[in-house]
């Protein structure tokens, strides 16, 4: 279902559902991914990884491996130069290159299990793996720090000896707190004093992974002139190029990064892991080298999204107006600074209009893999805490949870708790649409068996969305079709959504625009496919390029008709004279005459966008709990989201469904299962339990279109907002079903059963029962 805020102009292409341009290649298996790259003389690389989460390297001897027949090159951290601290913008995250280098390969200390220590290149993968066994490493294990509590405790072992923390009091040494940020507004003490109901709870989350199907990979080849080509699976070829250039200390223009098809990223394929390693090995070997991670390495040594601890306190007066809110977020950065706690802090109160607020955010290093972006990074954790507490406040006041959210909803002109003033947003429209949705108005129904219980929960979520730099080239073919080269890697159907925006301007069918994802030598600078920015920003670049094409084509028509350009109009794909009704030519007809009117015609669009327009996604969960096993089944699910304008509604729906599906997995079963030494025990898709198709209902979608005034078609980002609410929605549904408030992820069967039994089947007590608050009588 689509709800559009006001009647708008009729589009020919936008809002339709053409078959994606890359669909045939993908369904027939012809699309080329990183693991498919093959060359004559190609060597395989393999990486030796630390078995310890924290240890000093006392000895590292690669001489035997180097001598093994079939081995062409061996490298260690010594082959990467020590870089000064330098912050590079990787798109959704800022990386410090000094730490990136150490993350790629350890120097004298390993700081997480799976940390690369050495790498080899050999004639085949098996030889490379056997060679790794010949590398002698002596480790001196150090005490590990695995949680934010451990890391922040006085006298905690230091993860990074040289870390200089940015604290409120200034620079700090001998700390695991990389950064402490505070946002304050109004007077929270006064606000809480006015509250009739105050709820304060602490939530604990565990690390989870994006779970993309395709592992990281990279292939590197050097030319004799010192130029380097890298083929890789990445969300941003230009960001890879710039980072590799800095790490290898060479000019960016000497590196060409060719992004291949990508088997999922979700933010996890923004950082680099293998590219410089492949490059160094290839340079040493004098032959191209290819590296492909195995699943265990993907889990242990790429960037998941953090666990941590979040405390939230919310007060409201008896009329149901929030009077004050406080949050304290402590996120695991992993072994190097840079968790998404800042984004979590900025999103946590975004759905609410708050007179008084205070937010503390701590970025904390621990002996776990360095975290990376994962779909609305940091916001899902924050929403789990905030939306649970909001639900409880509403419940205690006896107010319907959606009504309470509406009463306190942030609107255009309101101040977000961290400072910015909201532009035009669809928060209220989304909440209203949720109230009118089929699921919210349908009975929950009786449980399917006597030992089962049902519940319904709702939660709201916000994500900023991004703008940034994009480029797009268009060239008109003489048959009236248009070749398009754009710089955004296509993860979610963006070839289609970008091409459709060009087609709309040109007045031709979407199929007549032929999109290609360019590499760093074929198209202008384009930032990562991330931050839900691609359809918005690269789409805008395509719009500008197409507008330029129309203008040039008008000039060609003017030449043909021998009239002045100002006398020509373009509408619905047709050029016509304002004065002479006989003079009409379609886009295709003008294209056919290109050679007679001046030759080739092309145009470029480039943008550096701001004003992405944030998005809200409210979700409704119906669950059924088996009270004898603790298993939770999701019966029904609706995502209601402000999408600005859905260019290709099917892909927008897909993003909403995909975000919800990942959020449901995060809520119910996904977790890094650690032992006390920092070893992950479930580093396979068998035991890292993501939902399968059989674990999810058909996820219903309601597209609310509140156009973004900063885009010609009103586009807002849609990919990330839908993962924000689901964890909280499940928690609220479980509260409804069982009367228990869950404050820890995942809400796995053993934890749910422990809560039902009121005992400790799952070790420490993990769920707190509400103190006799009245149950809401909705059904």
């Amino acid at each position, binding site marked *: 279902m689509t709800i559009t805020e006001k009647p708008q102009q009729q589009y020919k292409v936008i809002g339709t559902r053409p078959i994606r341009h890359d669909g045939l290649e993908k369904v027939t298996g012809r699309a080329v991914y990183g693991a498919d790259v093959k060359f004559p003389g190609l060597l395989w690389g393999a990486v030796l990884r630390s078995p310890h989460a924290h240890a000093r390297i006392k000895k590292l001897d690669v001489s035997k491996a180097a001598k093994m027949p079939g081995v062409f090159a061996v490298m260690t951290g010594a082959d990467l130069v020590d870089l000064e601290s330098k912050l590079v913008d990787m798109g959704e995250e800022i990386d410090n290159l000094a730490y990136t280098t150490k993350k790629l390969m350890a120097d004298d200390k390993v700081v997480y299990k799976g940390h690369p220590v050495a790498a080899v290149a050999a004639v085949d993968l098996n030889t490379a793996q*056997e060679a790794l066994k010949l590398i002698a490493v002596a480790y001196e294990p150090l005490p590990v720090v695995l949680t934010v509590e451990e890391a922040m405790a006085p006298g905690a072992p230091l993860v990074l000896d040289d870390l200089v923390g940015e604290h409120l009091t200034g620079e700090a040494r001998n700390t695991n707190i990389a950064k402490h940020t505070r946002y304050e507004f109004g007077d929270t003490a006064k606000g809480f004093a006015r509250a009739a109901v105050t709820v304060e709870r602490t939530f604990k989350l565990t690390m989870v992974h994006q779970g993309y199907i395709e592992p990281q990979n990279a292939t590197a080849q050097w030319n004799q002139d010192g130029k380097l080509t890298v083929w890789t699976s990445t969300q941003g070829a230009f960001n890879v190029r710039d980072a590799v250039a800095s790490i290898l200390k060479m000019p960016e223009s000497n590196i060409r990064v060719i992004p291949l098809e990508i088997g999922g990223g979700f933010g996890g394929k923004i950082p680099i892991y293998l590219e410089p390693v492949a490059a160094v090995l290839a340079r040493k070997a004098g032959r191209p080298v290819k590296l492909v991670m195995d699943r265990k390495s993907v889990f242990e040594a790429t960037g998941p999204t953090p666990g941590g601890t979040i405390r939230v306190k919310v007060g409201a007066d008896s009329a149901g107006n929030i009077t004050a809110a406080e949050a304290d977020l402590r996120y695991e950065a992993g072994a190097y600074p840079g968790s998404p706690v800042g984004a979590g802090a900025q999103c946590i109160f975004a759905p609410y209009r708050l007179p008084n607020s205070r937010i503390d955010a701590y970025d904390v290093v621990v002996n776990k893999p360095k975290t990376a972006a994962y779909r609305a990074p940091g916001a899902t954790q924050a929403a789990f805490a905030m939306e649970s507490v909001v639900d409880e406040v509403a419940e205690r006041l006896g107010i319907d949870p959606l009504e309470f959210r509406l009463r306190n909803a942030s609107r255009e002109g309101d101040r977000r708790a961290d400072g910015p003033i909201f532009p035009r947003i669809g928060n209220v429209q989304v909440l209203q649409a949720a109230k009118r949705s089929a699921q919210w108005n349908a009975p929950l129904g009786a449980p399917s068996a006597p030992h089962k219980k049902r519940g319904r929960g709702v939660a709201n979520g916000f994500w900023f969305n991004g703008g940034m730099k994009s480029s797009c080239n268009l060239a008109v073919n003489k048959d009236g079709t248009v070749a398009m080269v754009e710089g955004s890697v296509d993860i979610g159907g963006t070839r289609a959504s970008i091409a459709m925006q060009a087609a709309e301007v040109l007045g031709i069918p979407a199929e007549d625009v032929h999109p290609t994802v360019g590499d760093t030598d074929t198209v202008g600078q384009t930032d990562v496919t991330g931050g839900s920015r691609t359809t918005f920003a690269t789409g805008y670049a395509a719009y500008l390029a197409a507008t330029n094409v129309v203008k040039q084509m008008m000039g060609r028509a003017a030449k043909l008709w021998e009239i002045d350009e100002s006398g020509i109009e373009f509408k619905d794909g047709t050029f016509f004279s304002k004065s002479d009704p006989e003079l009409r030519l379609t886009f295709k007809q003008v294209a056919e005459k290109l050679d007679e009117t001046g030759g080739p015609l092309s145009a470029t669009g480039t943008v550096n966008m701001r004003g992405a327009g944030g998005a809200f996604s409210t979700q409704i969960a119906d669950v059924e709990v088996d009270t004898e096993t603790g*298993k939770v089944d999701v019966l029904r699910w609706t995502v209601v989201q402000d999408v600005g304008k859905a260019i290709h509604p099917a892909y927008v729906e897909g993003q909403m469904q995909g975000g919800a599906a990942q959020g449901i997995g995060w809520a119910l079963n996904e977790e890094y299962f650690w032992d006390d030494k920092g070893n992950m025990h479930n580093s396979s898709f*068998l035991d890292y339990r993501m939902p*399968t198709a059989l674990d999810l209902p058909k996820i219903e979608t309601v597209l609310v279109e509140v156009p973004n005034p900063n885009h010609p078609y009103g586009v807002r980002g849609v990919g990330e907002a839908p993962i924000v609410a689901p964890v909280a929605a499940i928690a609220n549904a479980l509260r409804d079903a069982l009367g228990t408030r869950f404050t820890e992820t995942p809400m796995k*069967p053993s934890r749910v059963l422990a809560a039902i039994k009121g005992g400790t089947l799952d070790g420490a007590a993990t769920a707190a029962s509400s103190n006799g608050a009245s149950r809401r009588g909705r059904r």
Partner: protein
Amino acid sequence: MHPFQYLAPTTVKEVVSTLSRYGDRARCLAGGTDVLVQLRGGRFEIDALVDVKGVPELMELRLGADGLHLGAAVPCYRVYESPRVAKAYPGIVDSASIIGGIQIQSRASIGGNLCNASPSADSICSLIVHDAVARIAGPRGNREVEVAGFCVGPGKNVLRKGEFLVSIFVPKPAARFGAAYKRFIPRNEMDIAVAGAGASVTLNAKGKIVAARIALAAVGPTPIVASRAAASLLDREPTPEAFARAGDIAALETHPIDDMRGTADYRVELSRVLTRRTLAVAAERAKGAK
């Protein structure tokens, strides 16, 4: 990975001589859904992988007057796609149809599942409650071992040097026999049992239980035969109360551990619930059986 030979003998005798020659430096390959994954994961190193699918006895699926002869390498799908087997051996079919997904079931065999001797194996409990027997060939001739005694530890079985599993024999069930297997997984598919329970009951003409077998998965170092729980059902009506009591006793017969898939306490709880639920299905099937 250490390089190894791929060998494909075609007779039982050849397999025995090959295995005798290599000892623990060789492993049998049927569907390969366990052994290949373990090899890649570096669990062990071998010099020879012995593909047994070319040996006719290992690919035979025959329903005789005496019972079911199930070749050790027969893939799961052939078991559940046979209507006659499905009717007579419902517990085994429950298991064959939940091991992995469709692709896995097209390769993986019940025999392989047994030899892999995982405590969480989905088929072993069903074989036990169907009183199945493992038929083994070796350098000193053939021998038979009850499936209930086949596993001796996690990943360990009774096979000695040079021996391998040729087939599984499952006797023809008595009249008014029913069996079932249920496991608990946090998801609805593609998962490994946190706990599992197989149960069979045989009713007399008056509807009383005259024989019962219960076996539990993933709650001990091997599949566990819950004999006291089964004994509690003898001469009783198949009632929810009787099954609940059997579940309580079965829970006491477990020796689970804590791991990433579940805590010991949780597994005890699951054993209680699964035993009760599985018995109820087995009894319904017994009532429906001729």
